[in-house]
């Protein structure tokens, strides 16, 4: 079992705490001049996303988490599992709905995604920052529309619903920022 000592702590280091994989968000070395040294860390649970603070005595060891990020190509899903493939090794990875999370709203076949693997299995799926998707349904958006606030809802080919400007129509391709879930612009074929 690989371990890290506190003096190896840095942002991004992946460690095991109470059976869950965490990433270190912040690491602070704290030491009164002639006293016990501590590491105060902020860590994010890679399963739940929750951030907590912990203190370790300097010199203590923690278990390393076998966590790594890999870029995989999305192949397809069967409603329960999402299938990805490594573009060079052709190795296949299967992610459940929990791991795919929000990415399900944005990914279509052949999109390259960043998958976080824990012990070799997909833990989280990050879609590309920007995706180009076709609008499958939206109202014509005539002026005088009472929805107000600017824009109208549009359903995309993945089933996601985003707010788009009134001039954008069904069957058009649009670019969406997956981090905010917002319309960015019209898009050409990609």
């Amino acid at each position, binding site marked *: 079992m690989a371990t890290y000592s506190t003096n190896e702590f840095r942002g991004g280091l992946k460690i095991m705490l109470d059976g869950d994989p965490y990433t270190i968000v912040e690491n602070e*070395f*704290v*030491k*009164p001049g*002639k*006293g*016990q040294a501590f590491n105060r860390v902020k860590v994010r649970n890679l399963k739940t996303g929750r951030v*907590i603070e912990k203190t370790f*005595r300097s010199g203590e060891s923690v278990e390393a988490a076998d966590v790594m990020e890999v870029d995989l190509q999305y192949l397809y899903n069967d409603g329960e599992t999402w299938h990805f493939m490594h573009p060079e090794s052709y190795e296949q990875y299967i992610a459940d709905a929990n791991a795919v999370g929000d990415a399900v709203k944005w990914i279509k076949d052949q999109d390259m995604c960043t998958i976080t693997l824990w012990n070799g299995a997909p833990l989280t799926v990050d879609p590309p920052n920007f995706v180009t998707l076709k609008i499958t349904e939206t109202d014509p958006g005539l002026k005088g529309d009472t929805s107000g606030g600017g824009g109208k809802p549009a359903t995309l080919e993945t089933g996601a619903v985003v707010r788009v400007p009134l001039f954008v129509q069904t069957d058009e391709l649009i670019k969406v920022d997956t981090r905010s879930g917002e319309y960015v612009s019209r898009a050409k074929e990609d």
Partner: protein
Amino acid sequence: MDHPAATWQPAATLDRLRARARLLSQVRCFFDSRGVLEVETPCLSAAATPDPALESFAVPCRAGSAQEIRHLYLQTSPEFAMKRLLAAGAGDIYQVTRAFRDGERGRWHNPEFTMLEWYRVGFDHWRLMDEVADLVASVLPGTGEFTRVSYRALFLQVLDLDPLACTGDQLAAKARAHGIDIAGRLDHQAWLDLLFTHVLEPRLAGRAVFVHGFPAAQAALARLDPDDPRTAQRFELYVDGIELANGFHELSDPGEQRARFAADQERRRAAGLPSVATDERFLAALEAGMPDCAGVALGVDRLLMLAEQADRIDDVLAFPLERA
């Protein structure tokens, strides 16, 4: 050595390097005008501090024609050497030198750092606090009043707990109550350090405070307070919540100093730390007689950080550890 093309440059800006030069000059003026002699003592020594909280760098040395390698230590502070000078009759002395502490790296720590250390014959720690305040006020003019609070009073005020008369369990409960999540077993001093750093230090932000009367177990080389031997005649200056200086009414009794060293060596052994050679020359100097004095060690890099409102110690160092 990674990315030399990217890491050959200094971490501090040239403006900060100039500010450091001005600070050093200011420090020299301060002491020269008070008749305090500047001294230089070795960074390398055959002995090291047995303090279990300090890790000395050991340096392998060839000794003349000997086949065997022996080790010298880089100083964690110039204290022992300067006290030998005091015993030799040097009078009031100061030094700006490098201190080396392995395993200490962070926003406020670089394993190699600059220490200003000075000793005043015939001063007690109260009078020395006045002088520390004068020096720091001259470098940080906006500082305002330097207040004083005892270690015990601080714990009572903030945590409603008497650090000199509480149990480890009570300290652990306080830590939990303040949202500190720490695993494992700590000894009494470690709990006090945990609460001090996590809860009390942040309360010292925005002002200059001398914390005095540290518990006897944290006396280091300070005399015990004859009025309350549960505490030591030791103080720390905190400016804006940052530990800046550590001062003592110096212990000059060789018997008690030797006993403290032995206790430290035993704590090192119990903690599985390597033993270090005791500084017998320092003890011999105490046997010969060191005058009644008070001394203080001040972190020059941190003082410069405060003067320059720098974020990290790297911002005031030409080459912090990773670029050295």
